[in-house]
Structure formats: structure tokens, C-alpha cells
């Protein structure tokens, strides 16, 4: 399955990130994970939040455009080598990974957010190999 990720384009200037986060805070949108890709001129703030659709609307009201896109949140065992094994499965299918970042860690499991050049194909391969993918709502109760 796919989960929704919220992406915000922000210019690389002081205080801009804080302004975005302030909108989310005021509207009770909880951030479960984030990745900030930075270049010299701009950054892409990618967020996994508990309420993606509402988050997008609240951000728009606050003057920030954002994008909702499909990504995979993959559950893997919290043990040495499991991420490498996952990537081997994906690499063997010939699909390129656009970006990836880590997410909440439980005692037994960890989660990674992954965007591949061919998302459908990756999703199918993961299913075939018995790899579990989850949605944002599944993460809310992780402590």
C-alpha cells in the first residue's frame, strides 16, 4: 500500500522552516517523521504526518503551497542487515530509489519511507516478497 507524504518547497532563508512548523503546531498536526533535502537555494521539506489531507489544507490557509504524494512506508525488522536485504529485493527489480529516510523505531521493528522511480512496481514486489507496507494512520500509536 501507499501512504501520503506532504512536501513543502521552502526557500533557504532563516526562519522559513519554523513558520511552516508553526502552522502545523497551531492546527494540531503531528509530525511522525521528516526529511529535509537542502540545496544552496531551496529546501524540500518532506513530512509524514498523522493527518496529511488536513495538513495540506491548513498549510494552504497559512500561505504555504504543498504537494501530497504517494510513498511507501515499509516495515522492517529492527535488526542488523534488514535494510540492506530490503534494498537488495528492490535493486534486483531494476527500480531506482529517488529518496529514502528513516521513521519511528519500535522494539522489534523499524520503518523506512521510500520513493522509487516506479512506485507501482516496487509496491508489487514488496507484496510478493511478504514485506509489510503501512499507512500514516498505522504509525500514530507507535510509542
Amino acid at each position, binding site marked *: 500500500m501507499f501512504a501520503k*507524504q506532504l*512536501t513543502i518547497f521552502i526557500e533557504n532563508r532563516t526562519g522559513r522552516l519554523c513558520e511552516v512548523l508553526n502552522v502545523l503546531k497551531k492546527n494540531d498536526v503531528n509530525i511522525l517523521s521528516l526529511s529535509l533535502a537542502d*540545496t544552496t537555494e531551496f529546501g524540500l521539506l518532506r513530512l509524514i504526518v498523522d493527518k496529511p489531507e488536513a495538513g495540506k489544507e491548513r498549510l494552504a490557509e497559512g500561505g504555504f*503551497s504543498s*504537494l501530497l504524494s504517494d510513498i511507501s512506508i515499509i516495515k522492517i525488522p529492527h535488526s542488523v542487515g534488514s535494510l540492506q536485504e530490503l534494498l537488495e529485493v528492490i535493486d534486483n527489480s531494476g527500480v531506482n530509489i529517488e529518496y529514502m529516510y528513516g521513521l519511528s523505531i519500535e522494539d522489534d521493528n523499524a520503518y523506512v519511507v521510500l520513493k522509487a522511480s516506479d512506485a507501482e512496481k516496487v509496491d508489487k514486489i514488496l507484496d510478493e516478497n511478504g514485506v509489510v507496507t503501512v499507512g500514516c494512520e498505522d504509525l500514530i500509536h507507535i510509542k
Partner: protein
Amino acid sequence: MIWNESKECMSRDEMSHLQSKRLVKLVNYVYHNVEFYRKKMQAVGLLPGDISGIEDITKLPFTTKDDLRDNYPFGLFAVPNTEIVRIHASSGTTGKATVVGYTRRDLDVWAECVARCMTMAGITKDDIIQVAYGYGLFTGGLGAHDGAQNIGATVVPMSTGNSKKLTTMMVDFGATAIACTPSYLLHISEVLEAEGLLDKIKLRAAICGAEPWTEKMRNEIEEKLGIKAYDIYGLSEVMGPGVACDCEFHRGLHVCEDHFYPEVLNSETLTPVADGVLGELAFTTLTKEGIPLIRYRTKDLTSLDRTPCECGRTSARISRFKGRVDDMLIIRGVNVFPSQVEAALVDCKEVTPHYMMIVDRVNNLDTLEIQVELDPKFYTDEVRALEALNKKIGHIINQALGLNAKIKLVEPKTLIRSEGKAVHVIDKRKLY
């Protein structure tokens, strides 16, 4: 020294007489050879016979850059292409270039005018001159080249783009003069300084133009390089560099008045103002065959001085430019209109039509940054896609302006929206 004393030191009466004779001939010439002028004259009920002297020039309609664009490419030429031996072009206000054509005689007049200017700068046949304006469609390179060759100087056609080669040759050849934009010369002085070559050059004169510059810049150039720097003016529509130049007294630029009749107009009424009063400069090309222009509005702001100069020349002088009537920018010697950027961005659907041009001068070289707003509809979560977009816009802008610009993608709705006339330019250079 004076290159052509009989013309440059004529009495005002003689000059006025010569201009009258040439204007009468010109009006007949364009009336019979250029449909555009014939129609324009007919529209105001004017016949060639109505113009009997230079004082009648105000009866004639103006010509603008838009007229050149509307008649692109050769519509205003007065001769068939068999008589045209050279084409030059400069930026138009939109995508289309402003095209001009020269007959063999036009090129001779041009080389004569540039020779006068070079002589004003004290350059003679004994000099080795590096021409570091761009060679090509731009009039700077070939114009300065032909003029320098005309006086018999040793011309080194450097063109632009390789400062290291230029400084090396300046030292090795013992170059004594250079023709380039003033900002580029300041940059060259820094390169020379960094390489420890400042005391090894033989340079003594520079003839600088193609962009506005200040007295402060002149002092800086002269001090740094230990040379004399002169201001040469021109525009491709009228001819190219050599329309006017300043002498060693630096009290305005002497216009080659026997070829280019200058008028300074009140910006509102478009009627000529008194000498010394600021207004828009217009030129009538008294002797041009290829693309003669009647009362061509340059959009440059200046004033006229017809009193004799200490150098002995009697030609009218135009003051240092005080600005522009329109929004044209000159960046690294290239004419740039904000409307060109607008036209280029229209086809790029990933960005909104809002943009801001930030012009600055860093290490004496002009920089242009263009900020464009991302369109939220084309948002992406991949850095790669944004970098590709940045590159694509950079390419589009380069194609449109003939100039490299730094593109900066900004968040939607963050560029200033003005309520009246849109502000698209922030020029930090303070050139006027």
C-alpha cells in the same frame, strides 16, 4: 589631435548649413525609398518639399524601436540587399531583434566617426589597441575594429570572454590602448593586479562604452591602471559606437553632428528643449544609406551643449547620461528589456508569470539573478526535478537575452505584487 578638423571644428553656421542641406536630401531619399516614411509623412500631410532646412526637422514624425520591430527584419531599409554589405542586430523589446543594415559607404562613415573618437582619446597609428568588445551581431567589436584600423593602429581583435589571454597579450604585445566596456576594464585591472602585472603594462588609453558609467568609475579606472579613459557612445540603430565621444576635457561627448543630428526632447511634449535642459535624446541620421532614421528616439536622458570646447572642437556635446525613459537595462554591455524575460517565461508552465530581476555588480562584473515563482500545480517532491527545471529556465533565458542569468526558484506568491506599474527590476549598481 583632431582627426577631421574641417568637420569637427566647423563654425556653428557652417554646420547648420551642412545639416540643412543633408536633411533636405535625406527626406527626399526616405520619401522615395522607404514606404514606412512615405506613409508616415503622408499621414500628416507632409511632402519632401516642405522641409527646406534643419529648422524644419520638428515637422517630421518620430521613429521608435517599435517601428524597427514592426518592420522586422528589413522593412526600413532604403536600399535592396545587393547594396547592403553588413548586418548587425541588437535586442528588441520582445523576442525579435532590432536589425540594421549598412552599405559600403555607411561602413566608411562609421569607420570615420570611430576614427574621430579614437583620435579624441589620443590614439594614433603608433598604438597597439586591443578591441575587447564582443565581435558578432553586436556593433561594439567590429565597429571599434574598423575605426582603429582606419587610423592605422595595430588592432588586436580580442573579443570578450578570456581575461587571462587578454592580460597576457596586453603585457607581451605591449598594448597601449584598449576598447571595451568600463566594467570589464575594471575587472581586467583586478586580474592584472592579482597576477602582479600592473607595472608591466604599457597601456595609456582606454575607450569605453556600450554601458552607462559614472565619473567615479572613470577615476577608479584611471587611478588603478595609470591611464586616461574616454567615454564613447553609440547605438546600433543609429550606427554603433562612435556616434559621440568625450575629449581630454571630459565636458560632455562630442557628437559627430555632420552625420547624426541630435535633438533633446521634453519627455512629455516631445518638443525640443533649450540647451542645457535634460530630456530624451533623438537622432536623425543625416547621411545613412542602409537604414536611415528620422528623429529616432533613443530613450536616453541627457542635455545638449553647443558652446565651443577647449579642445577646439565646435561640435555639440551631450552630457553624461542621466538615465533612461524606458525600462531597458544594460547588463555586461547587452541591452535587456524586462519584457524579454516575461515573453520567455510565458512558455514555461512550471512557473507563474511573476518574476524579479536583480542586477548587481560583483567584482566589477554585472550579475543578473532572475527570481521566478514555482507554480503550485507543478510541485514536486524531488530535488532532481527542481534542478532540472532551474537548468531549463536558465537555458530559455539565455536564448532570449543572449546572457547567462542565475535562476532562483522561489515560493509561490512571495514576489512583490505592485498595485500600479509592476516592478520587475532591482538594479543595485547605481549607474546614473
